[in-house]
C-alpha cells in the first residue's frame, strides 16, 4: 500500500510503522529526518507547493514500489514551522526481504531531497535564511535513476 502525507502536525512514527507492520511484510526499513539540535537553529520552517508536492511524492513511492516489489511505501513530510528535535520527514518501506526494503528506503529519501518541491528556512538568533541546495544531494539522487 502507498501512503503519502504532507502535514503541518507532528509526525507520529509509531502509528506510521504500525500501519506498515500490519501488512505482513518480513522486512521494514525506515528513515526519520529530524531538525538537528546542534546547529544553532531555533526554528526550521518548511514551505511546499501544495498539489505538486503530493503528486511528486506519490510518483516517487509508486516508482520504488514497482522497482523493488514493495508491499508498502509510506512517506510523511511535515511542513510549517518546527523546532530542534522534531521530525521533518519519515519514510518507510516494506518488502519480503531486507535488501529491497533497505535499498528502496535509501533511494526514496535521496530522491525526495531533489525531486519534491519543499524549501527550508532556518531561523537562528542572527535572523533567518533559506537553506541552499547541496550538490551532494543531486549526486545522491542520481545514483538511483
Amino acid at each position: 500500500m502507498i501512503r503519502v502525507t504532507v502535514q503541518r502536525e507532528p509526525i507520529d512514527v509509531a502509528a506510521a510503522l504500525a500501519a506498515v507492520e500490519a501488512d505482513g511484510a518480513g522486512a521494514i526499513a525506515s528513515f526519520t529526518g529530524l531538525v538537528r539540535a546542534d546547529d544553532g537553529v531555533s526554528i526550521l520552517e518548511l514551505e511546499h507547493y501544495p498539489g505538486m508536492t503530493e503528486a511528486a511524492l506519490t510518483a516517487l513511492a509508486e516508482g520504488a514500489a514497482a522497482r523493488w516489489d514493495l508491499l508498502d511505501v509510506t512517506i510523511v513530510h511535515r511542513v510549517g514551522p518546527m523546532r530542534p528535535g522534531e521530525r521533518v520527514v519519515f519514510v518507510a518501506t516494506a518488502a519480503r526481504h531486507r535488501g529491497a526494503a533497505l535499498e528502496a528506503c535509501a533511494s526514496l529519501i535521496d530522491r525526495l531531497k531533489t525531486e519534491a518541491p519543499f524549501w527550508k528556512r532556518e531561523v537562528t538568533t542572527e535572523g533567518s535564511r533559506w537553506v541552499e541546495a547541496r550538490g551532494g544531494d543531486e549526486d545522491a539522487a542520481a545514483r538511483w535513476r
Partner: protein
Amino acid sequence: MAIEMLYFAWVREGVGRGSERVDPPADVATVADLLDWLAADSPAHAQAFGDRAKLRAAVDQAFVPLDAGIAGAREVAIFPPVTGG
C-alpha cells in the same frame, strides 16, 4: 491565455507575492521568456529573477528546464532548487 504564476521561498519573498495571474503576449514562448517579460516592467521581479542559475521551474506541476515551452500552460511555478527531506 492566462497563466497562474506561483512563487516559492525567496522567489516569493522577492516578487512580493505567492501567486499572480498573467496574460503574456504570443511571442513569450518559454519559461525564460516569461521571466524576461515579467522582469521588464517590475524591479521586484527583475531582482528576484536576476540570477537564472538559481531558479528552477515547474509547468503544470512538472519540473522543467527554463528553456521549456509554455504553450497551453495553465500554471507556471518559479522557485529556488528544492531543499526538502
